[in-house]
């Protein structure tokens, strides 16, 4: 293959991939929007009480008015799925908000103050890396009792070093730019320089990080609920549904696990795809 050949083929392939990528991105955005609407309106749309049990309907398949059938306890699966959307999505939103807030603050502080502040914060973050998110969440559940309110801050703390490490590097590069020095010479306060200039310039990276983080937090929180340390009965999210459906799976009725699993899988694929796309686009610039 000659160099020219490679160049031409590379270019044409890139162009066709771009349009396919655009369509895929549109689909991914639609999927995410759909799930966000589910989280907002899902509990209202549920046709039946998602916590109402009736053992006579245990594992009954789809019937009129119950398009997905029933779980082991005889709860309407569709209603459970719709009601579970909100806790499933609120948790990761909380994790992302907290860890992005902490990550941005710490990284900008590192870049702006430098020296000892930077060294101290960086050392602290290095140590936090030693705690896998799930482990910290289990620790929090042991101390404060199992709930979403224990798991979310624990995960947020575990994720902060990942956000901060990436942002710190970018903030340091930005800090060395001339416009920052120019602003300082003009007597702009550090607060104004950081909030009006430095952080807005980091925004694309922050968005890319937050998107990828959301997928991780979503999966980890579902895993924590699966372990019984997240959302507590009688409420359920998709993680607890996968766990509750396990006994059904062993008896040959995988409907509950599968329906919740499909929701988790589809959302993770869509968010991951968007996150990688945003990150790649930022790199090209």
């Amino acid at each position, binding site marked *: 293959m000659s160099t020219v050949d490679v160049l031409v083929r590379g270019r044409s392939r890139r162009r066709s991939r771009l349009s396919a990528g655009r369509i895929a991105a549109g689909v991914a955005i639609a999927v995410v929007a759909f799930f966000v609407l589910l989280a907002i309106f899902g509990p209202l749309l549920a046709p039946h009480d998602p916590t109402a049990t009736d053992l006579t309907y245990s594992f009954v398949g789809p019937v009129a008015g119950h398009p997905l059938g029933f779980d082991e306890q005889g709860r309407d699966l569709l209603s459970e799925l719709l009601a579970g959307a909100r806790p499933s999505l609120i948790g990761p939103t909380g994790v992302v908000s907290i860890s992005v807030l902490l990550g941005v603050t710490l990284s900008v502080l590192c870049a702006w103050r430098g020296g000892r502040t930077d060294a101290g914060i960086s050392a602290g973050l290095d140590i936090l890396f030693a705690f896998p998110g799930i482990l910290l969440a*289990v620790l929090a559940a042991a101390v404060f009792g199992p709930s979403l309110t224990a798991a979310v801050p624990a995960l947020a703390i575990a994720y902060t070093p990942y956000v901060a490490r990436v942002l710190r590097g970018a903030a340091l590069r930005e800090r060395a730019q001339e416009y920052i020095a120019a602003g300082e010479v003009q007597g702009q306060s550090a607060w104004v320089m950081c909030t009006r200039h430095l952080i807005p310039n980091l925004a694309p990276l922050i968005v890319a990080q937050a998107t990828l983080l959301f997928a991780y937090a979503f999966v980890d929180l579902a895993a924590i609920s699966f372990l019984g340390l997240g959302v507590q009965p009688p409420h359920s999210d998709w993680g607890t549904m996968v766990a509750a459906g396990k006994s059904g799976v*062993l008896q040959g009725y995988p409907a509950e696990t599968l329906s919740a699993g499909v929701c988790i899988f589809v959302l993770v694929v869509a968010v991951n795809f968007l996150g990688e796309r945003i990150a790649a686009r930022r790199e090209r610039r």
Partner: protein
Amino acid sequence: MLRFVLRRLAILLGALFVSSIIIFLALQIAPGDPVTTLSGGRSLPPEALENAREQYHLDEGPLPRYWHWLTGLIHGDLGDSIVLDRSVATAIGERLPVTFELVFFAGFLIAVGGIGLGLIAGLRRGLVDHTIVLGTAVAAAIPSFLAAVVLLSVFSVQLGWLPALGAGSGVVGRFEHLTLPAVALALAGLAVVARVTRVSVREESEKEHVETALARGMPNRTVIRRHVLRNAAIPIATVTGITITSLIALAAVVETAFSLQGLGAALVQAASNKDIALVQGIALVLVAAFLIGNTIVDLLYGHLDPRVTPGARAE
């Protein structure tokens, strides 16, 4: 090189020390009386309460208490599990083998399967490449707990090929029982490793030194072995190492899904039971394993890439 190793070991010791403080503090910040926390809210007879007070030095300040805990730790004394009614060290000793075997098995799958698939996709363009890219994109989005339940459904319940729950006995039984859990644990990580491997092989093979070597008439195989794989090995080794050490925490989920009596499952049960001493002991073991694993990865990285200047911090 020696300085690099010593420095890395010093960081490891520091991190272990700070982790022990954090895990120790977990008990201290728990709301309410530590004795109540230790007993998990159960009412204990007065002499048991007195025992616990004495054993955990609850009448002293936090610093001497930490000191007692740390010295006990170094002697292998992690306290007693209230729920299991035996020493935490014994409980950990019983649970450790299953977790170790599971993580080792899954790590092996990730190293062989992930790097293998990544190399195939990276070196061949076309249909094979596209299939692997698509397949790994799907696999990377399947959480381990979901993979566990789906594998159970398909291979144990529907097809009946492999046993469903428990750890089995004997070498063959253990292997059969751990196959599905190891696959569930490895799946997402395997996909990530394959994707990183593919990209680094692809990037390396498009570099000028590779084209030059090919233009000089060196055989393709030699170029791939000496020029492409050598350089691509660095990111591949790093991501494989990090992925495998991350399995240590994730094992808890898979062990719970397959009812394996491993460390992670014990940690989750202990957390539900508020068996704080056991939670602290297991958390400490897992964090230590994770830290030691990461140190080994870093040292390997320094060994693989001579450009890593000893003592310098990665930016």
